[in-house]
């Protein structure tokens, strides 16, 4: 597969790069690790006129401790660097698990955190070559008002398959978006949209420059459901973060990924656990609520019936693991 033609721009500084994004906002893509973008370009799904490379910029690869005890992670840190970072390993082991489950070592060696958070949504009707897609009409992602997955839908249902997003959402992380006009911070829980096409609130001229993770004194679990370990997109991911005790939790966050166009925070499950504490009965109730909360599940990559059957057990096991961590 060939890459289409494009103009390559390499800014020497961050502000130079942001100016380039602003200037070419109508037809520009950000080159980070490239392991997602370049494939989509080979498929002819992305054909930007300009590619701006932010690799190698010092200010984007720092991992710093914040005054409140949390972390500020540069968005261009490679996933391998993050997996190896002692601060993340000791303070946020579940986050390390999530980062570690992305792709393979080969992918993590070039893939970045920012790239994984902004990972384009995936659908097996679209993430295919041009020739493959020529067998059927286009869709919301390409050039028609149509969804092949849910035929009656008025929006795109491509899946968000980022492994880091659910975990960082459960940890109440915030992303810093920078542009030539300045920076803004957006809580990750508000960053994603239930739309496979416009799947984040990031504007084309904005660069995700840092991830801010608040201090976390609780327990967290990241779980990935895949047939293969070491290189597989998930049939579902689950991130849970709890502060307080099993008997009296102070906060509960439960986010499911790879199941819809945006990772889903399951408020109903969270409420059950907050009210009832984390025990066998509430875990069971939360697991049932999770399945009900997810609504229509697509038949993408794995049969929807299977995903529905799985969810209860999947949630139950992760919550049980979390509960047991208190011992």
């Amino acid at each position, binding site marked *: 597969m060939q890459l289409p033609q494009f103009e390559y721009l390499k800014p020497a500084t961050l502000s130079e790069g942001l100016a380039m994004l602003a200037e070419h906002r109508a037809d520009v893509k950000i080159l980070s690790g490239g*392991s997602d973008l370049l494939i989509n370009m080979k498929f002819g799904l992305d054909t930007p006129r300009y590619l701006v490379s932010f690799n190698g910029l010092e200010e984007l690869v720092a991992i710093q401790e914040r005054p409140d005890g949390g972390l500020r992670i540069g968005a261009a840190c490679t996933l391998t660097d993050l997996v190896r970072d002692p601060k993340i390993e000791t303070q946020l082991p579940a986050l390390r698990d999530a980062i570690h489950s992305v792709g393979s*070592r080969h992918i993590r060696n070039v893939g970045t955190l920012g790239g994984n958070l902004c990972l384009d949504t995936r659908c097996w009707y679209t993430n295919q070559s041009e020739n493959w897609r020529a067998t059927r009409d286009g869709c919301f992602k390409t050039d028609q008002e149509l969804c092949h997955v849910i035929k009656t839908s008025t929006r795109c249902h491509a899946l968000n398959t980022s492994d880091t997003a659910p975990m960082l959402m459960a940890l109440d992380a915030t992303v810093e978006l920078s542009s030539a006009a300045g920076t803004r911070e957006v809580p990750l829980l508000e960053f994603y949209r239930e739309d496979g096409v416009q799947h984040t609130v990031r504007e084309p001229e904005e660069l995700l420059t840092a991830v801010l993770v608040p201090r976390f004194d609780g327990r967290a679990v990241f779980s990935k459901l895949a047939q293969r370990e070491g290189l597989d997109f998930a049939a579902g991911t689950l991130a849970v973060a709890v502060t307080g005790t099993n008997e009296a939790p102070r906060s509960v966050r439960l986010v499911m990924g790879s199941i819809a166009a945006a990772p889903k925070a399951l408020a109903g499950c969270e409420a059950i656990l907050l009210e009832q504490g984390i025990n066998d009965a509430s875990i069971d109730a939360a697991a049932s609520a999770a399945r009900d909360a997810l609504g229509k599940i697509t038949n993408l990559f794995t049969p929807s019936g299977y995903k529905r059957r799985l969810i209860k057990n999947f949630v139950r096991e992760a919550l049980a693991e979390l509960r047991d961590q208190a011992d």
Partner: protein
Amino acid sequence: MHKQLIKLTVNGDTHELAVAPNQTLLDVLRNELGMTGTKRGCTAGSCGVCTVNGEAGEAICSCLTLAIEWDGRAVTTIEGVQEGSELHPVQQAFLEYGAVQCGFCTPGLIMTAKALLDVNTSPTEDEISEALAGAICRCTGHIKVKKAVRRAAEMLRERDAAAR
């Protein structure tokens, strides 16, 4: 889209090359430098036959990185693994343990294994499997490959001990 001059160091030799932005590192290695030891496979980062080692010795799919991003940087390919006329322990172990059959994935696997062992000569079973997970091997089913990597680790530890 015009070509740009880059300086790329491959196995210690620096080359000045004119590359188009849309040429991958794999394209440049095979087509511009004629170094066909690195193979072309899925070209989408999922089979690992195109694996080379980056500056920190890390395993990278050369099909998913732009050559132009490597201006001023260094890369190691399968052609640069041998130590003079001596095979590298990873290469020796692959031969000794029958981890080579059709040979198409072999360069990619060796570069993947080398990346692992360059930073860690005592990998656990899981670490070996994890490193290899990004590379396909249809003939051996990975079974003898894992044994070869274990053996290579042992050889490297012995070599390190002897050096001290």
